[in-house]
């Protein structure tokens, strides 16, 4: 009798271990379903700012305004100038013009460049992708005024100024961010 009971308990012991593991996995799957990819961006970040009346930066044909960012080194409100014939690189590596620290950024993540009067965005083989208006890009893409660029949990807006203006008439909360 005791032997039988012993055998039964031995198997129940093993059985419950696996019931536990299956329950665990089931609950985690239920949990994961509620989380969407890129969950970091779903968090309430700093309030977005209106870019419509962003004054042009001197000497720049276009600009890149940071809308949403949790990165202290890349505060929202920063505007980076883009010049034709020049490249602006983004990534974790120290050699980039814009230094990203977020967990979803790669060492060499993406680059902006101006060519033939147009501005292009290119993904440099990043692991988590570069999104242009919520579509992941896989080849260099031409940017239009108002395009939204998302890298990890940083959202930026491309602003095109059709004309160059003299310096000194900027207004608003924007500060010119230093490159590099």
């Amino acid at each position, binding site marked *: 009798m*005791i032997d039988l*009971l*012993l*055998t039964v*308990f*031995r*198997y*129940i*012991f*093993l059985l*419950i*271990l*696996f*019931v*536990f*593991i299956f*329950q*665990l996995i089931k*609950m*985690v799957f*239920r*949990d994961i379903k*509620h989380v969407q990819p890129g*969950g970091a961006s779903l*968090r309430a970040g700093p309030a977005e700012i209106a870019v419509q009346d962003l004054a042009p930066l001197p000497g720049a044909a276009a600009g890149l305004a940071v809308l949403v960012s*949790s990165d202290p*080194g890349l505060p929202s409100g920063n505007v980076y100038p883009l010049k034709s014939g020049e490249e602006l690189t983004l990534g*974790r*590596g*120290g*050699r980039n013009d814009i*230094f990203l*620290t977020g*967990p979803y950024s*790669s*060492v060499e993540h993406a680059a902006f460049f101006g060519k033939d009067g147009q501005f292009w965005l290119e993904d440099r083989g990043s692991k988590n992708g570069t999104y242009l208006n919520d579509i992941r890009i896989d080849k260099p893409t031409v940017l239009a005024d108002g395009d939204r660029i998302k890298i990890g949990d940083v959202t930026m807006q491309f602003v095109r100024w059709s004309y160059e203006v003299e310096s000194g008439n900027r207004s608003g909360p924007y500060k010119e961010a230093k490159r590099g």
Partner: protein
Amino acid sequence: MAFRESGRGYEIKLLVLAGLYLAAGAAAAYLWAGGDPRTYVIGVAAPALAFLLVAVIFQALKFKADPFLLPVVAVLSYTSLVMLYRINQFYAVRQFVWVLAGLAFMFLTTRLFTNYRRLSDYKYIYGLMGAVALIIPIFFGIEEGGAKSWLNFGAFHLQPSEFVKILVVLFLASFMSENRMVLTRDTVTIRGISFPGPRSWGPLLGMWGISLLLLVFQRDLGTALIYFGTFLAMVYVATARMLYIGVGLILFMGGGTLSYFLFSHVRQRVDIWLLNPYNFIELGDRAYNQAYQIVQSLFAIGAGGLTGTGLGGGYPLFIPAVHTDFIFSAITEEMGLLGGVGIIVLYVFFIFRGFKIALESRDDFSKLMAAGLTALMALQSFTIIAGVTKLLPLTGVTLPFISYGGSSLLANFIILGMLLNISHEANAHE
């Protein structure tokens, strides 16, 4: 979000299931080993209710930490209690006390260090405390199992290096989060390849060299290996650069080769691993013991088969130190391949949740600390499971939450508490 509210519900449900697991296992162990029926009742009821109590308090306090870690740890601790009761009732009773103490320490950690970020202000104190805690056993310590890293307190022995692990992670997390920009930015360029400057690395490597030297002196190689691996993992998390991992692995290989030729006890372990361990059984003394241990462990694992011999059906006591380092072999013998794999799945699960916490946390210090503590747990469980199955040379470290031993258990429960804090912090601001 709805699932956040139901998180504590998951936890309680899983803990009830874990309690049934303990009751069934303890019933088998009790039927086989006999003893006082009150031991059975208290041994099952007290831990199961204590874990549930903690979960209920968490719910009342609206603690938003990961709900899966505590139940996983509960099952690991329950497995420990059941196996130890079967191996040696004296150890089981002591472990019972340590599990409850560990749970209390974990709870205190979640209460006292809820605002854990201010811990990053005292990094040099951790460095100093860690160094002192490692130096003391060299002079006042006693040797156990080939490692002179224990302090004798009469009623119990304490192994400071178990706690220094946490201090090392704290120190590295504070240091790296403060200097991360410097670490990631290239400062020296040689032949077109950029390297970080020595200024940012000096203090780090200094601290590192000291702790490694100490560990070599104490002959606690397993711990040294775990420290180094954790360090590499944290560097990778901080910088995302494979270069450091490459350099680290080369350093590790170099150090390993060097210690193979310098230290006879290292050479022995590697030889036993590479060559046929049976050959060493004829040699006397230490080599004999280690080879014998491995051989018995392999026999035990083999004897287990798919579902094991059942609790009490095997002969785990043939393995020396089966209650500490070799407890995984005993589990595999008596619960079979299924039991062994189940335990490994639970560790993998713990590690998965740990890295998830690191990914979700919002600042560098939390991220590095969560990743570091998880890496510590991962490396430790891997090192010892690989050691007893002869996948790697054996290095004596404990199997987290399962091996008999108060220091290791308390340290691991504190790690659990820290992870829960970081998780709570990340979820609370969502």
